């Protein structure tokens, strides 16, 4: 049984992430109407939002301790926030500003934060070996920390997935592999790309535990991750967790989603995991609706402040592009 503070915290983290993504969806469209131009507006480029996938990030990261490392994907915001990244610096990076994590050099797919040991990559599956290496370092350093690699179900068909699992298992590393199975890799449904139904079954090929969380439920994610983390911290090696989750929005903003029907999208919206959890907590009197509303309002204020910070921050000097290639 998860204690009530943790339950409230899980809800709060999911709501922060959702509010952030919804705000990003709006900001992203600034300057892109009436004619959509991907290069226009305060936030140009590709924008992959994770609305619907918050339970995975919140449930796993609530188990992490200071010093634990996380690698994420092209869809990183919910994970970065749940892992404690400074929202202002993150937002400023997404706006390409001097005050951003990488002074505007990285952008939304390249958020790097030494403080929270967070990194992500736009190359599918390629964050996984990095997490293996971070876990290797922790083991060599005797630190007791773990590394967590988040990846999509599409990534599980890359060589890097299989190599990472084998290495981690072989070297008994403190690393957790978390598959966010949102059923889609851009336009390709999972069953058209993956030879088996559940990626968690692939753990057997590497002799490590594989756990399946089948309905995007933050409680189940939290509890499953707790078991895997305990095992990792005890020096017993890696685990693979697969969560069936939902991508409520397009692959990227501006995606017309012609590959799935409006009904399919609405069905996902109706089973929104955050609303479900909020309701459950109200019903079990962990909080009342006024307190729930307060969480939403605080999240909105926090996100607004972060966006305001990003907007009002200066752009880096153009010539700064030429610096910083080497240490």
């Amino acid at each position, binding site marked *: 049984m998860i204690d009530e503070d943790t339950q409230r915290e899980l809800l709060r983290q999911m709501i922060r992430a959702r509010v952030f993504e919804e705000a990003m969806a709006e900001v992203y469209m600034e300057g892109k109407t009436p*004619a959509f131009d991907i290069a226009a507006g305060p936030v140009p480029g590709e924008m992959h939002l994770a609305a619907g996938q918050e339970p995975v990030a919140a449930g796993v990261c609530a188990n992490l301790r200071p010093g634990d490392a996380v690698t994420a994907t092209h869809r990183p915001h919910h994970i970065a926030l749940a892992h404690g990244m400074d929202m202002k610096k993150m937002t400023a990076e997404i706006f390409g500003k001097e005050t951003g994590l990488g002074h505007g050099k990285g952008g939304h797919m390249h958020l790097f934060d030494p403080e929270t040991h967070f990194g992500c990559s736009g190359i599918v599956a390629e964050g996984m070996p990095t997490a293996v290496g971070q876990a290797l370092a922790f083991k060599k350093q005797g630190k007791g920390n773990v590394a967590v690699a988040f990846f999509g179900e599409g990534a599980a068909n890359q060589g890097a997935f299989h190599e990472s699992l084998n290495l981690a298992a072989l070297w008994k590393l403190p690393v957790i592999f978390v598959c966010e199975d949102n059923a889609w890799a851009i336009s390709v449904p999972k069953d058209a790309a993956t030879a088996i139904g559940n990626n968690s079954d692939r753990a057997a090929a590497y002799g490590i535990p594989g756990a399946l969380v089948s309905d995007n439920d933050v409680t189940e994610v939290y509890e499953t991750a707790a078991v895997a983390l305990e095992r990792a911290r005890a020096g017993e090696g890696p685990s693979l967790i697969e969560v069936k989750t939902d991508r409520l929005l397009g692959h990227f903003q501006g995606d017309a989603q012609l590959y799935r029907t409006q009904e399919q999208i609405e069905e996902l919206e109706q089973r929104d995991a955050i609303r479900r959890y909020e309701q459950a907590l109200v019903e079990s009197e962990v909080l009342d609706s006024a307190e729930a509303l307060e969480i939403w309002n605080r999240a909105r204020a926090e996100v607004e402040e972060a966006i305001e910070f990003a907007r009002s921050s200066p752009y880096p000097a153009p010539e700064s592009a030429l610096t910083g290639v080497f240490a």
Partner: protein
Amino acid sequence: MTTAETGSETRLLTTSKAMVEAIAQEMERDPSVFLMGEDVGVYGGIFSSTEGLLERFGPERIMDTPISETGFIGAAVGAAIEGMRPIAELMFVDFFGVCMDQIYNHMAKIHYESGGNLNVPMVITTAMGGGYSDGAQHSQTLYGTFAHLPGMKIVIPSNPYDAKGLMTAAIQDDNPVLYFFHKGIMGLGWMTPNPRATDHVPEAPYVVEIGKADVKRSGSDVTIVTVSLMVHRALDAAEALAKDGIDAEVLDLRSLVPLDREAIVDSVTRTGRLLVVDEDYQSFGMSGEVITTAIEGAFDYLDAPPRRLAYPDVPIPYSNPLEQFCLPNAESIAAVARELVNA
């Protein structure tokens, strides 16, 4: 144009539609042609490079793949060896890192290693280029990296006409061909509009010979050599230069391998001045190769040291002002050309 006119009806097509038309015509003609890649089916290619093909040819010949580039590009190599003519799409050229072994150790070398006994007739199509804040892993051009490695042809169209003719040539070629299309020349509705991305294209099939450069604008004062989107920038620069009384020649290489060295030497011999514009990283790449070609072949005709305007040797920054600072544009091209002419 150095290409023969076909005499058939032309229509206005975007570069992406011209490219798709060539693929479709070759698929009609040759049952051994098939196409695979990520999101090439229902989606029609992230950059519309396969739009409508699934509806026409079905999932047996237009195959959506898992995200397994080593697997399916390597499979294209195998299928090619057995007599098929696969087209494999690498969604962004930046992703080459996860499958380069299949490309340069297998696709590019098997013909040579087999003493000529095996052919690898396949095409890899790939999107390249930046300018729209897609960051360091989704904005590169990288054609220089591939051109450096022997055994594969490199074609880089700049416009709809060439896109169709080069695609037809690439599919018919008995060698592996990498076909680079710049996102900014495809004529996509969601990118910054580019009037040069739409042009008259003959309906009947035709070939643009691989390895032949094209003089897009003839001039007598300075030769600007480049490829793809930078051809458009160079043409804009040439228009501005004309107002200053500088007559610039713009040479579109269209292929890097084989490189039309004769065309470079010929143009520089006439103008006496060379500027290479390159969206790829500056060092060890196209700009160096073109300048060397000019020095080797037209040294005595050069009135000034050749110049280059390339992407600086830094990863591509996300932030717009930083990225734009690094990219050559019509103004910076014209400025360097002026310096060159006034030197």
